[in-house]
């Protein structure tokens, strides 16, 4: 990680509630690209991991961890911290990257991703990695687990919020809809799901593998508050996250329309890059494109 494009010091966090200034939006947008670069290096160097779904979630996780979530990396077990359930566990290279830059563990440790003795397992494991709430990997768990967390917060009279980042491929899974009904039954307005709707799963487009549209209408029919946004537009993400805090009496879902492999032309919308590993030439090309992506947000 010596060529790491980002500093090893904890990255700047914009406290929850601060105004979304153009400078803040540009900074977070640029950093989403820099985190992609970090993930690209991890997967390229370790020759294992999932790039496509990590890249589609870059802006979502950046917005959550560097603005929305009320956390204390010094005290990961703080009872009233906001919870984040990363349901699409295969994309955890991005989660690890964001957690490291948020100060949960040294950025240098990212180079051990999926290695023997590493704390950074192939899929998240809470006992090993600071900042991880629950394990993930087998798909579809996030909503029902999040509902349990939200019920727990309500029982405690706590204002903590539970966020779930869900992949669109996970929507194939029946337990997702069990969780959706459960959260609606209990009116869990402290539960907020963000669907990283990148339109591609392991063997093809979601439209081809298992059509899920009209997805907004489905969630609405289950008595959820639904917002649809452009999932790579930082301003839209930040506004949507603020908006859903104003919803009372029902759980909320943000359908974030994203691009799998976002930022690298030959990876975008390609099922091959769900779990593909770049060769040297592809790595160089991807790096150049992501650096260009970051540069567009340079002040």
């Amino acid at each position, binding site marked *: 990680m010596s060529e790491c494009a980002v500093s090893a010091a904890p990255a700047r966090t914009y406290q929850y509630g601060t105004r979304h200034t153009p400078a803040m939006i540009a900074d977070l947008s640029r950093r989403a690209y820099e985190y992609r670069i970090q993930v690209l290096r991890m997967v390229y160097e370790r020759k294992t991991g999932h790039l496509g779904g990590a890249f589609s979630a870059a802006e979502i996780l950046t917005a959550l961890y560097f603005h929305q979530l009320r956390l204390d990396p010094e005290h990961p077990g703080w009872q009233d911290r906001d919870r984040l359930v990363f349901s699409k566990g295969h994309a955890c290279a991005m989660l690890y990257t964001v957690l490291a830059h948020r100060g949960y563990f040294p950025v240098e440790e990212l180079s051990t991703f999926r290695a023997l003795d590493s704390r950074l397992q192939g899929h998240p494991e809470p*006992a090993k990695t600071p900042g991880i709430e629950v*394990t993930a990997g087998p798909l579809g768990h996030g909503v029902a687990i999040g509902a*349990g967390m939200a*019920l*727990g917060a309500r*029982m405690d009279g706590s204002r903590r919020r539970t966020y779930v980042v869900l992949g669109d491929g996970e929507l194939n899974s029946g337990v997702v809809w*069990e969780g959706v*009904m*459960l959260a609606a039954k209990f009116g869990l307005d402290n539960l907020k799901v963000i669907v990283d709707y990148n339109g591609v799963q392991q063997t093809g487009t979601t439209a081809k593998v298992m059509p899920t549209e009209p997805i907004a209408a489905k969630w609405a029919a289950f008595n959820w508050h639904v917002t649809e946004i452009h999932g790579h537009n930082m301003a839209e993400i930040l506004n949507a996250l603020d908006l859903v805090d104003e919803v009372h009496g029902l759980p909320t879902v943000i359908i974030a329309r994203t691009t799998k492999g976002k930022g690298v032309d030959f990876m975008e919308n390609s099922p091959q890059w769900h779990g593909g590993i770049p060769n040297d030439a592809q790595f160089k090309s991807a790096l150049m494109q992501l650096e260009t992506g970051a540069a567009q947000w340079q002040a």
Partner: protein
Amino acid sequence: MASLIRDPFGDAVLMRKAYGDALVELGHARKDLVVLSADVQSSDFSYLFEEAFPDRFFNVGIAEPALVDCAVGLANSGKVPIANTFAFLFATRALEMVRTHLCYGGANVKLAGAYAGLSDSFDGPTHHSITDVAILRSLPRMTVVVPADPLAVARLLPQVAEWKGPVYFRLCRNEVPRIYTSEYQPEIGKGVVLMDGDDVTIMACGVLVARAIEAARLLADEGVAARLVEIHTIKPLDGELVRRCARETGAVVTVEEHSIVGGLGGAIAEYLSETHVVPVERVGIADRFAESGPYSDLLDRYGMSVNDIVGAAKRAMARKAGAVSTAAREMA
């Protein structure tokens, strides 16, 4: 020692009623206890907890995967959730959630498996649960506890809640005799020697402990001194006790309301095969599905009668004698 067993047994009471009462008592003692049900609270009597603590009871509908996952979320919030559904559903439909989040992920969730074994007798093999112990005990970090009577339910449930990590608590639907006196003080992970004897050890769990007691008494009438041990915790197994009994009696019979594949019998056979090899006879269901019928008749029909236990004890002892004579021949 004999004072642990009532003689004669006490009146039969519904084990599920004992469970519901124990839940309520525990609810008073532990404010962090929450109870979830996949819409079976009227079956397993967890409705008693719902009535007493409506704010700490959640019916998640007929959705066993979400039942377990929701409990995982509550555990993350510092609650001690007890999830309730039929035993076979934990071991089948919700198994992936159990493996991933309770065992691998370490979520501190307790599973109360209702209607285990053949106890939902008339509903038939779709509802019987004869492989749950084998399945759940194969998972790293899982603890498996099988109470034998209403008092055992009441005394073990608080320990289940206190135990760090996931526990599967296997429960019977039906009326079962009260076999234990108030002297009975079970401890998770420790077997209980109920009767002394040196000819053979009968290791039993669950409601069949009552039949094993009857079998041991019949054997005594025939001059056979059977040692009777209750293994209420299938995992972690009380290996020290199991090995000592094997060494001291030279023959073992296991008794369980479960398939003979992978349950108590499997656990003990595995353990003894590597520590102290003696003849082991397994009383249980012979790797097949049962059928609908009255509970007691089903237990008899499918290999778990008192006579089946007596016969297994005699076979084990005969094999022990055969092994001795074979060894003697080889030495000669």
